[in-house]
């Protein structure tokens, strides 16, 4: 592995960890279920995506890198579906989106 690929991989991994941190902070700090949904999906999509990309740069084979990509795509699909379901059912239950006071 060349030094440039190594450095890119480390940067991607650190960026992914940063998104996970942001997702957790958002989950703890945001005021209602919809804004928390927004924070969680950032961690799901960007955080895991960056980590998978950073690890794919280290993969032994193209197939290994493709498998990481597929895992990310599965999580993307699942989290988009689940977030949509939770947001819609919360609206149907009459939970009002938070407004700035």
């Amino acid at each position, binding site marked *: 592995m060349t030094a440039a690929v190594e450095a890119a991989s480390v940067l991607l991994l650190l960026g992914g960890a940063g998104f996970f941190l942001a997702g957790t902070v958002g989950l703890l700090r945001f005021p209602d279920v919809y804004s928390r949904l927004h924070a969680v999906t950032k961690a*799901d999509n960007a955080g895991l995506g960056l980590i998978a990309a950073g690890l794919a740069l280290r993969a032994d084979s193209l197939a290994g890198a493709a498998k990481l990509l597929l895992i990310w795509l599965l*999580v993307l699909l699942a989290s988009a579906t689940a977030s949509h*379901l939770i947001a819609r059912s919360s609206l149907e239950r009459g939970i009002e989106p938070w407004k700035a006071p």
Partner: protein
Amino acid sequence: MSALLLGLAAFLLVNLAAGLVRVMRGPTAADRMLAVQLFGTTAVAVVLLLAEAQQEPGVHNVALVFALLAAVASVAFVQRIWGRGRT
């Protein structure tokens, strides 16, 4: 190099522990379920990092199972507990 990977995995685990506060506080079941969804994704990331640190590509299958379980858990929650017509 594996020190960075293990360190990142530990950092994500600390994140996960912090997320438990939201499970405790709620206030609604949906908030708790969102924290669980984040746990699922974090678990996938941790398992991928550990697989690379240990040079065990077979562990990627475990990450796939985690991703599937998180998806099924969220859909089951909306279907059975949180969805239309339930209290």
